């Protein structure tokens, strides 16, 4: 650790100015406590108003299909994003050469187009008379009376699309750190490229896969934009229920319960997932 030298040298300085880091942290930490931590408690309290835990039971029984659908969609979107994102990150990191920066820049270009407008562009692409429907009809994948917009496919595809850069970037970072001499050594020792990939590259990129899948799954599970713009009443997700029922001035406790439950499921899922993959690193 390069940090130890600095610690020794400035130990005395540190003792005299022990309050400095706290002073630096105070404004930001205060903001986060008041507007992030406290609201979680206020939401939790509200979710128990008139009814207590029964609110949760009601919300789950009323929305069981929606809840299952939400996590299935988010899971599928994450798998698609991984299938597209991993090879892309791999090519950029290990084969990109002098085009590395350019290719990486192309991956983040969607960030500069507002989320909502990006999703509207998928509507253009997937609607009747759009290029995708035409191609699918010609190939016979899609019947004349079938549409893409309104289907689960459109929602999942757009979810995968919207959070794809969050998948590519962390995987790229972890692949970039790999010492290519390890792969050369494996090759010199008569390992096949596929075996070297599995034993070295894939293993060392797992922290990136971990971060990328979470950064895709979490926002996808809470989204309501894609299901609203590209889905139908058959594709309603948890976010849509909250969006459709929140009043600008008041709301029912059940909505807080639903929101709290979404958070709890995701937090538990993250912890289990971290154990399974054996990594504590998130970002």
């Amino acid at each position, binding site marked *: 650790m*390069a940090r130890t030298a*600095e*610690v020794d*040298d*400035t130990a005395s300085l*540190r003792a005299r100015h*022990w309050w400095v*880091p706290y002073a*630096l*942290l105070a*404004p*930001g*930490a205060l*903001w*986060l406590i008041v*507007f992030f931590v406290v*609201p*979680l408690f*206020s*939401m939790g309290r*509200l979710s128990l108003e008139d009814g207590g835990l029964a609110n949760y039971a009601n919300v789950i029984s009323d929305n069981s299909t929606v809840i299952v659908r939400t996590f299935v969609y988010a899971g599928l979107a994450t798998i698609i994003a991984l299938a597209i*994102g991993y090879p*892309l990150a791999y*090519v950029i990191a290990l*084969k*990109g*050469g002098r085009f590395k*920066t350019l290719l990486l*820049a192309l*991956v983040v*270009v*969607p960030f*500069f*187009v*507002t*989320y*909502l407008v*990006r999703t509207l*562009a*998928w509507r*253009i692409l997937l609607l009747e008379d759009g290029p995708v429907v035409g191609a699918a009809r010609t190939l016979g994948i899609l019947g004349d009376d079938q549409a893409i917009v309104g289907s689960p496919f459109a929602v999942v595809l757009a979810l995968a699309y919207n959070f794809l*850069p969050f998948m590519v970037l962390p995987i790229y970072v972890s692949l970039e750190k790999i010492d290519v001499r390890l*792969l*050369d050594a494996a090759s010199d020792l008569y390992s*096949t*490229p596929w075996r*070297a990939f599995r034993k070295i590259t894939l293993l060392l990129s797992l922290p990136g896969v971990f971060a990328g899948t979470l950064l895709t799954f*979490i*926002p996808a599970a*809470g989204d309501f*934009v894609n299901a609203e*713009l590209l889905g139908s009443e058959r594709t309603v997700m948890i976010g849509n229920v*909250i*969006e459709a029922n929140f009043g600008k001035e008041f709301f029912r406790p059940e*909505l807080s319960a639903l*929101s*709290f439950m*979404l*958070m709890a499921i*995701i937090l538990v899922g993250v912890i289990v997932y971290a154990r399974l993959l054996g990594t504590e690193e998130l970002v």
Partner: protein
Amino acid sequence: MTAVVDRPEAVPAAGPEGPDEPGGPRPSAPPSRQWANKLGGFALWAWAIAGLIFILAPILVTILFSFNNPAGRYNYTWNEFSLDAWTNPFRYPDLADALSLSLRVAAVVTVISTVLGTLMGLALVKYRFRAKGIVGGILILPLTMPEVVLGFSLLTLFVTVNWTRGFVTIIIAQVMFSISYVAVTVRARVRGFDWRLEEAAADLGAGPWRTFVRITLPIIGPGVVAAALLTFALSLDDFIITYLNSGLSETFPINVWITKRSRIPPQINVFTTTLLLVSILIAVAVLYWSHRQGRKLAAPGGGSDE
């Protein structure tokens, strides 16, 4: 040593015609293996290029449809080429007002979040203190929650204390999620830097202000600018959290959302395309600047070439 020579550092043009085989052909490898490797490399490149097309297609469609003259009120189907939307971008005053609100919000949010987040990032990199773990946790936690949870819980607070939603609550909400991004970015960019340079400057008689301007600022500068740009982009982009806490105020995405059932004009695409081009220009300029800044810092006697 042959292994090292085998691996080209710079791969030539990324065309599907000239893919580089993974691992390179070994002199000892049988021809069938070489052929398989070549095919694998080709498939990999093809898949990656397909991925890039997937990423860029909606962006190109967005730009293209700013030149559309839609047949009805919805700019969903290509009708005919037209510059109408470009010559008449402010045709919908509410849309233009919403864009102006978005830009003002982004400016304020960028300043506040960059200052608060940079201070937090510096504290985490430069110092060791007891509460480090807790602070790190509070910073990461917002990133592990869906926006709808962050936005909705903040709304319950505002409703509980009866705080009217509008400009101020939008700022509060956006700064809340931006601080983490800034702190994490700054921390990552300045980690591993030799902070003894600051003490060296002080030992050589530089005052605190001079030390800050000549040493600290050049060190943290590129990281802070990157974080500020990220915040500005995040602020313009955010819809879900902002929508839940905006009251009657309309940012650009909120206006599009609210009016989507009555109109989708090409002016939306005009504004988006303009923002995209400006963002790319700024990003390129900043990349160039931070590259130079990095060289200056590395060069002996650097920083005096102006």
